[in-house]
């Protein structure tokens, strides 16, 4: 049995619902750290950033699931919805910390979204994710039909890309972290453009043109 086969077999026994619980628990734990003074002297910004970073990390994981299946036959599709919805919950929390704890003024919020490109981009990503979160249920898939639903959910690509660009845009100087995330997102999107290959197929001879 190959590694892929044993992983695929094992995942049958591991349900997806704990992802929601773990996500919520992690979110609550971070909030508690902020509340109890354990996020340093500037908990609002620190919490804002932590939620944003977790959101991006989960989004990247979501994006990795399809290529993982294509290229290694490991199928974790079953967890994709839970990951996507949890990521959205973190984006929402990120947004709420910004609006309710940080800015606390409707006019300021509007002004910032319009004036600061990195906020505009983050906000666009958030808006794109809303219909996706709202239709991440079986009822919506039936209602929209498989084709329609899949078409709508192609919005994940621009949304995640914008999220990563938002990160690159907001840093000063050249730290490597945001560029790593952007690189990962671009890489995972690019993998989808490469024609599908059978994992078991014999390796093409050196110099052969990839199909």
């Amino acid at each position, binding site marked *: 049995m190959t590694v892929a086969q044993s992983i695929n077999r094992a995942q049958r026994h591991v349900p997806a619902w704990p992802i929601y619980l773990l996500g919520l628990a992690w979110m609550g734990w971070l909030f508690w750290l902020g509340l109890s003074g354990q996020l*340093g002297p500037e*908990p609002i910004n620190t919490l804002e950033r932590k939620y944003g970073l977790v959101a991006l990390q989960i989004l990247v994981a979501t994006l990795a699931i399809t290529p993982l299946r294509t290229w290694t036959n490991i199928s974790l599709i079953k967890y994709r919805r839970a990951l996507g919805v949890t990521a959205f919950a973190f984006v929402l929390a990120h947004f709420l910390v910004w609006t309710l*704890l940080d*800015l*606390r003024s409707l006019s300021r919020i509007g002004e910032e979204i319009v004036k600061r*490109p*990195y906020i505009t981009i983050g906000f666009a990503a958030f808006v794109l994710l809303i219909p996706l979160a709202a239709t991440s249920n079986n009822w919506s898939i039936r209602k929209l039909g498989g084709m329609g639903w899949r078409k709508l959910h192609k919005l994940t690509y621009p949304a995640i890309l914008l999220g990563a660009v938002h990160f690159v845009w*907001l840093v000063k*100087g050249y730290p490597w972290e945001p560029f790593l995330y952007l690189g990962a997102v671009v890489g995972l999107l690019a993998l989808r453009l490469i024609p599908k290959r059978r994992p078991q197929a014999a390796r093409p001879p050196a110099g052969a043109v990839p199909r």
Partner: protein
Amino acid sequence: MARRWTNDLTPADVTPKAMWLNRRQLMAGLGGAAALSMAGGRAAVAQGLEPNTLEQITTYNNFYEFGTGKTDPAANAGAMVTDPWSIQVDGMVDRPGSYSLAELLDGLEVEERIYRFRCVEAWSMVVPWNGVELADVLDRVGVQSGAQYVAFETIVQPETMPGVRRGVIPFPYVEGLRLDEARHPLTLLATGIYGEPMPKPNGAPIRLVVPWKYGFKSIKSIVRITLTDTQPPTTWNALNRREYGFYSNVNPEVDHPRWSQASERRIGGGLFASRQDTLMFNGYEDEVASLYAGMDLRENY
């Protein structure tokens, strides 16, 4: 000539050491407001100049030589070698050379100055600095006529500085002031906080403090001071001219492309503290506005 500027606050308003060491416990034990007024003195509280605790001041810093995270300096700066320390003084001065701290500072009066500290990222603290007026140091080395600017440089110690090894921005970090800004009585060369030697995350052993400008102007761990007749390059301005001007005076009316400068978050308020309005020249308008008389502050941001 020290003491050309005095706080409205007296040294009695500075939290006694035993108090700030215990502030955390106090805060936990008594609840915020009571502890604050006890520890800081009524006058300070009334002015909104309640100093932050030493822990807050030393654990939330931008010091990119040690990494770009706010906690990186506290985590990494401990390894920085600050003894022995010498400062190269050159350019248009009468007595250029390599000075030890003692040669530069001995005999000058170290004062306590409680200043607001406003970062360009729209957060702020109140810090009780100890330092000498830069003007006194400049007099010691003798500024030649014709000099118009002072340039500063931070130490580069790749062995102890992960941010330098990674090259997160170009190093050495450089900053500069116009000579009249440098000579202003508010401008300090600071050597301590709360009466303790300057903590490493805050720029040990000696740093600049220019309280009416955004924090990045107040260069840390200085190893070189140069008097010149041309405006010196400054690190953030060179990186992004549109976002960081040479002057970078705190100004709530001139927006930074990334951060609104109209308001700020005071460090230490916890998760539910609201922003407060940013003051023109960070609250030092009476003292420094005349330096910029006739200048368009929007143009010269």
